[in-house]
């Protein structure tokens, strides 16, 4: 019997959430989110600012009580058994959840002591983590002088003191420079090798692409798509084709032609006479160009773009990612 349980528990989910709802005033910040995260995987929650990513994490991490729905972490209900769930998770917030006025060592020692480590043990653990995250030199300096990357690393180090089997990372690389971001990615990959499960939120498709085994795309508080990275990508087309017609009056006809030849839905922006279409098969573009020439439509510009978060959104939700700054930063990556 116990062997049977052990066998089934290996397949158990690290996170199971059903119909999570959180309402702030009259804003349904999270509106019926279902998630299933397999033990030992990296799960990405992708979405623009204000989509509800942080609220989902806060509910799963017992920081916020769901208004409806339920969630379990390794089989323990987050509302009924919060103190057990807290022993299984590490949370790294969007804004570093460490004490600004104290030094890195002091922060880690205090968190270690709170987690039940003895005085000497806490000190040893802190040194070990500082070493591992390359913060030894800065250990005694007050955090006020830390760079964004150092703060994030310390924050992550603090989440790993108790070696939790599940780690929540809320936008771990937002605002980091590319080099620091790559270091953070390596760290996250190493966590998985040691047997942890990671749930991370991100605004960047590339990040989800690099790290996540599965992705949930969140928009307006709901999951609009879920699957592996490949599944999502193929739903968007690997790249998108952008056409600009010379005569803006031609745009309607040009759009019809594009939709007919490529057999896809397109988005136009009338003021710039731009047509954007997902490009699943590059060979078909030749057919399209011939068709356009035969129809007598002259092009001003033609470009191919790799899929961005915006395209995922356009294709899945039918509208763009609202937050323009999000868009810009996603594209600049």
């Amino acid at each position, binding site marked *: 019997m116990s062997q049977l349980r*052990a066998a089934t*528990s*290996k397949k*158990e989910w*690290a996170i199971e959430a059903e119909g999570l709802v959180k309402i702030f005033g009259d804003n349904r910040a999270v509106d019926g989110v279902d998630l299933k995260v397999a*033990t030992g995987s990296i799960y990405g929650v992708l979405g623009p600012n204000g989509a509800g990513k942080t609220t989902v994490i*806060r509910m799963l*991490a*017992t*920081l*916020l009580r769901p208004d409806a729905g339920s969630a379990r*972490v*390794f*089989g*323990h209900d987050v509302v*009924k*058994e*919060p*103190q*057990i769930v*807290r*022993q*299984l*998770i*590490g*949370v790294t*917030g969007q*804004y*570093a*959840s*460490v*004490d*600004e*006025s*104290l030094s890195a060592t*002091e922060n880690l020692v*205090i*968190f270690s*002591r*709170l*987690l*039940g480590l003895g005085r000497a043990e806490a000190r040893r653990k802190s040194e070990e983590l500082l070493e*591992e995250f390359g913060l030894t030199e800065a250990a005694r300096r*007050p955090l006020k002088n830390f760079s964004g990357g150092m703060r994030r690393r310390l924050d992550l180090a*603090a989440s*790993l003191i108790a*070696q*939790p*089997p*599940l780690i929540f990372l809320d936008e771990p690389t937002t605002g980091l420079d590319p080099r620091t971001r790559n270091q953070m990615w390596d760290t996250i990959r*190493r*966590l998985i*090798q*040691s*047997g*942890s*499960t990671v749930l991370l939120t991100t605004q960047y498709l590339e990040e989800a692409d690099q790290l996540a085994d599965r992705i949930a795309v969140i928009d307006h508080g709901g999951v609009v798509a879920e699957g592996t990275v490949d599944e999502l990508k193929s739903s968007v087309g690997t790249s998108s084709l952008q056409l600009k017609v010379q005569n803006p009056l031609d745009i309607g006809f040009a759009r019809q032609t594009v939709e007919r030849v490529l057999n896809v839905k397109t988005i136009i922006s009338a003021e710039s006479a731009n047509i954007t279409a997902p490009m699943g098969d590059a060979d078909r573009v030749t057919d399209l160009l011939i068709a356009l020439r035969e129809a007598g439509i002259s092009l001003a510009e033609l470009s191919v773009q790799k899929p961005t978060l915006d395209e995922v959104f356009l294709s899945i939700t039918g509208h763009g990612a609202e937050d323009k700054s999000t868009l810009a930063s996603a594209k600049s990556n």
Partner: protein
Amino acid sequence: MSTFIKPGAERQLKNHTSFGQSVRNSLTMAYRGLLKIKRTPEQLFDVTLQPIIFTLMFTYIFGGAISGDIHNYLPVIIPGILVQTVITTSIVTGVQLREDMEKGVFDRFKSLPISRIAPLAGALLADTVRYTIATVLTFAMGYVMGLRPEGGFGHVVMAGVLVIICSWAISWIFAFFGVIARTASSVQGISMIVLFPLTFLSNAFVPVDTMPDWLQWFVKMNPISHLVTAVRNLVNLGTIGSDLVYSLVGAAVIVAVFAPITVRAYMRRT
């Protein structure tokens, strides 16, 4: 990350925090509070200056009018000033708690498997350092100005400890305001409105029999008056009376009421 992490499904865990763990967590949080005071010593400005300035000011303004001369007023005013200053200091506890809670680190405290009361109890405990500084300075000022307590050193220490205990209890009220208020400045505002009448409508500065009857009724009920009387008896006479018992019972009641509702409000707040 060198060792392999034990799978979550195989861990044996409990969903409650033991009393011993609560105490340990609170002490660790108090240690954090002390470290913060050590890092920003300028926040001790008020507890250092207020006892000095208030003692000088009140003694020389009211001394002649109330007790005939300064020297006779000292045994009356020093206990009064002591209670007023130390209790006013406890407002800062609420204000700082509000500021602290807005920072990300409180999210981490909430996500840790620690006793829920620890972040609050620890902060309040660390602030007893502030009360101690204010207490010592007020007595020192009194001594410099000529106060020679009849009760002796032992009873003065007892009086100091009594005031610190009662202020710690009262700081739970301000902690509650700190947890429910939106901004730090509103905590300061509400707390002053509560505390100002409470400390002045007492026997702290002026003999009660000079007040109108209806006011005397309130002043005699006021727990601050009992605390001031208890301190006066200890310092000036070296006696322990019913006022001391009233003060301690009052302190216990405040903690019993405000500690649970503060922790509840803290848990709800996001």
